[in-house]
């Protein structure tokens, strides 16, 4: 059923893409932290400093596994939504980005801007420093239930 619908959509898609021009990409090398974009931008779990780094790592795993867009918060404060990762377009598969969540990375790729949102096609991870933002030292864990009480 889904495949039939998808096949039928092919021509519509082609027409669609012929309309709005694809965004112009720019080759970049960016450095920053992989973040959970929903919690970061929605404020649902607290302020932005509390929903990055080790404090938010388990929640960030949950959101990446749930297919929520993973972003890269770069040193200048820009957040890029990651739409492709070292050749894989399946960034919402709940697996591809799990192992780098909360890590500080250097990545080569193509950056796009479309309607006020920044996007990133990551072609190659140049360096992976692991998790260096030890935010749990200031904020504990966010949300608190992401680290269950081992005594209960």
């Amino acid at each position, binding site marked *: 059923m889904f495949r039939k619908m998808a096949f039928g959509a092919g021509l519509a898609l082609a027409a669609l893409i012929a309309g709005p021009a694809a965004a112009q990409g720019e080759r970049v090398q960016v450095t920053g932290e992989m973040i959970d974009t929903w919690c970061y931008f929605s404020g649902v779990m607290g302020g932005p400093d509390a929903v990055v780094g080790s404090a938010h790592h388990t929640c960030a795993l949950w959101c990446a596994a749930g297919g929520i867009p993973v972003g890269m918060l770069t040193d200048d404060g820009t957040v890029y939504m990651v739409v492709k990762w070292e050749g894989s377009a399946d960034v919402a598969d709940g*697996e591809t980005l799990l192992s780098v969540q909360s890590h500080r990375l250097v990545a080569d790729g193509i950056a796009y801007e479309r309607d006020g949102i920044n996007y990133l096609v990551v072609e190659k991870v140049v360096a992976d420093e692991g998790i260096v933002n030890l935010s749990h030292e200031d904020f504990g864990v966010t949300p608190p239930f992401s680290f269950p009480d081992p005594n209960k």
Partner: protein
Amino acid sequence: MKRMIFAAAILSLTATPTLAQGKYSADSQAKSWNLLGEEKARFEGVAIDALCVLTGDCPADCGAGLRQMGILRNDDGAFLLANKNTQPAFTGATVDLAPYCGQAVEIDGLLVGDKDVTPGLGDGRLLQIQTVRLLGEEKPKKANLWTKDWAKRNPDVGGKGPWFRRDPKVTAEIEANGRLGLGAEADQKFIEENF
């Protein structure tokens, strides 16, 4: 103390509702989630994957739920990245949108984000999708398919509780690197200091 800081942060965000009325709010039936910069929005557009819009790489199935997706709004041609579905369970919206790949739909949900608090977003806002209606059909469908899809993909996962506490990939990652992502020793230290 750290938990008090967290609670205070939550309170500071929710005590000042920022629900705004925008161009697309009038006919919206979306429910408030008290989010930053929240604005109800109901509009028509085409469901499509983000890579297609950005690069012209356009599979006929939009990636079958594995690519990030959004809505290309009819009114102004703007592309809105779908960040979240309507389930309060750490779930995105790709599974809800993929069946409508390339088709005209009406979306009801929330535009989210406040660049004064989190400037990394630029001038755009993210989209939380609460319902999707295929144009030509009468009733909208709730954007709540993710957990059912997860259950289908993980028929052998046992136990009780929400999916995110049982997901094999998440469990493996936590077992390998801890809940803080810093290894077992850091987790143990955290436990000793906080529980």
